[in-house]
């Protein structure tokens, strides 16, 4: 039998997740490019990013399901790639697509998974089954998408993990179930000390429950901080251009820009005082002002900017 290091005897690090220089390539495509990320214990970290940005690759590396080409991934002080049993027992994982044995009934799934976790709390599991309204006698293949997602959450929460990792947990779920899901993540007694990492497309979900938000585009982490900080750093400059004139250059930090008729829109990350001055100095510019952006708009602008290579010029 494989030797199992007992995590409890080792000193507790401050970082729940530490990623350094993580690179992963699939053939010619670089899915993740020299990524550095530190998530402190007890943080709820929301990971945003368009499809193909590398979110799932990062999460799989944290789960030890894939090995980095370069760099290290450390979870709760342990090398994620080694996939130690002791570490697995401290993590609750909810993947995007569930592959739970379809022939099992829900109560059979619970009975199957329970012996794998020494910290399994039977009473908590019963409470969750009731709260999540799961029909214990139904087989997994008969479950709706929402029920399946809730089952995944149930088996992740019932063993009171030190870390909860969710990969697009609410994708395809209706708004009510999404809310129930988020509630369940936050409700638990030990929720304060637990670290949560979840990736999502739903910016509002992330905004609601995350302490820190990270945004990945094209394999890199372009934003990383609390929501307020991000909203402070990323702004839009709305400028009015003279008739028939085009701006000559963009300020430093431009993530996305667009010219439409006499309107010139620029999204800047990070915004500095110099950016507005730079725009005002452009001979083509009549006036300009700085406008705040919602998190969702920031997400869209940054994604668009990366996709179109910063250029979006429309003819009048």
């Amino acid at each position, binding site marked *: *039998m*494989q030797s199992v290091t007992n995590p409890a005897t080792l000193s507790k690090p401050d970082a729940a997740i530490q990623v350094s220089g993580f690179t992963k390539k699939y053939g010619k495509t670089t899915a993740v490019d020299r990524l550095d990320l530190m998530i402190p214990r007890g943080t709820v970290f929301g990971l945003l990013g368009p499809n193909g940005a590398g979110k799932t690759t990062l999460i799989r590396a944290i*789960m030890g*399901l*894939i*090995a980095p080409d370069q760099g290290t991934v450390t979870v709760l002080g342990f090398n994620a790639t080694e*996939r130690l*049993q002791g570490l*697995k*027992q401290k993590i609750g*994982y909810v*993947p995007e697509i*569930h*592959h*739970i*044995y*379809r*022939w099992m009934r829900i109560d059979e799934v619970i*009975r*199957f*998974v*329970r*012996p*794998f*976790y020494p910290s399994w709390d039977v009473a908590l599991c019963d409470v969750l089954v009731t709260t999540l309204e799961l029909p214990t006698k139904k087989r997994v293949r008969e479950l709706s998408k929402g029920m399946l997602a809730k089952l995944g959450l149930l088996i992740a929460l019932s063993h009171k993990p030190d870390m909860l990792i969710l990969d697009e947990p609410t994708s395809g779920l209706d708004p009510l179930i999404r809310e129930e899901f988020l509630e369940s993540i936050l409700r638990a007694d030990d929720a304060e000390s637990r670290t949560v990492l979840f990736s999502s497309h739903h910016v509002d979900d992330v905004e609601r429950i995350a302490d820190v938000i990270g945004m990945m585009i094209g394999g890199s982490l372009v934003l990383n901080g609390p929501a307020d900080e991000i909203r402070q750093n990323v702004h839009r400059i709305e400028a009015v251009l003279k008739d028939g004139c085009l701006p000559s250059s963009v300020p430093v930090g431009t993530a996305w820009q667009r010219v439409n008729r006499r309107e010139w829109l620029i999204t800047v990350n990070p915004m500095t005082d110099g950016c507005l001055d730079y725009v005002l100095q452009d001979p083509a510019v009549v006036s300009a002002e700085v406008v705040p952006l919602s998190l969702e708009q920031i997400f869209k602008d940054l994604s668009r900017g990366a996709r179109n290579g910063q250029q979006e010029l429309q003819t009048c």
Partner: protein
Amino acid sequence: MLRALILKDLRLLRSYLLIGIILMLSSYVMALVIVWFTPPFDNYNAPPIARIAIGLSGGSVLALLLTGFACALVSGNVFTAERMDRSAHFLDYLPPTRRQVLFSKSLVAVGFTLIVVLVALSTELLAWSLTSYAAIPEKKLNQIETVLNFSKLVLCVTGVSWAVSSISKSNGAPILLGLFSPLIVLSAVKGIDYFVELPDSLEMSFLRVSNACLFVGVAGFALGCFWFLNQRYES
């Protein structure tokens, strides 16, 4: 933890195990029925005990042949069943280590095969011990070697199905390759014989082939274990 895994694997392979058990029982029943209703021949009317003994003996060989098919089904599905519906991904991020998963599957698949072989051998021994109570023509005795040789064929089937199943995505290839493996071994041995030009008798030949099969079966099992342990689930 292992108990949960074993119960799960048993449930996963339930239908194939059941097929095996049914085939085994049917073999004995069929053999006994046939022998029971055989009219006397060569002026020899076998007494009931003798009939039972012959029936059990014949049944053992038949059981091995038919249940061998079920062994291919079991070993052919032991890894691929979870791969085909992707539940292997689910198992992969749960705490059990690869070794524990492997151990559980070995217990079920190989255990089943060994039970089949043991049952066949013990009924053969039982039949042989019964012959001391009745007079039976010499030829009918000593099927033990035959049973042993056929057991080796069954082990070959299991081992090859196991090996292919550990790397295959579906259960078709493992089952078919497992079933045909004794024939392949036979051809290989015969081919070598032809070139080496060894003097040969039919019995010696069968013994050699079955020993080769045993070797292939064990090697297959070891290979399958090695391949499974070194896999990464990447998609």
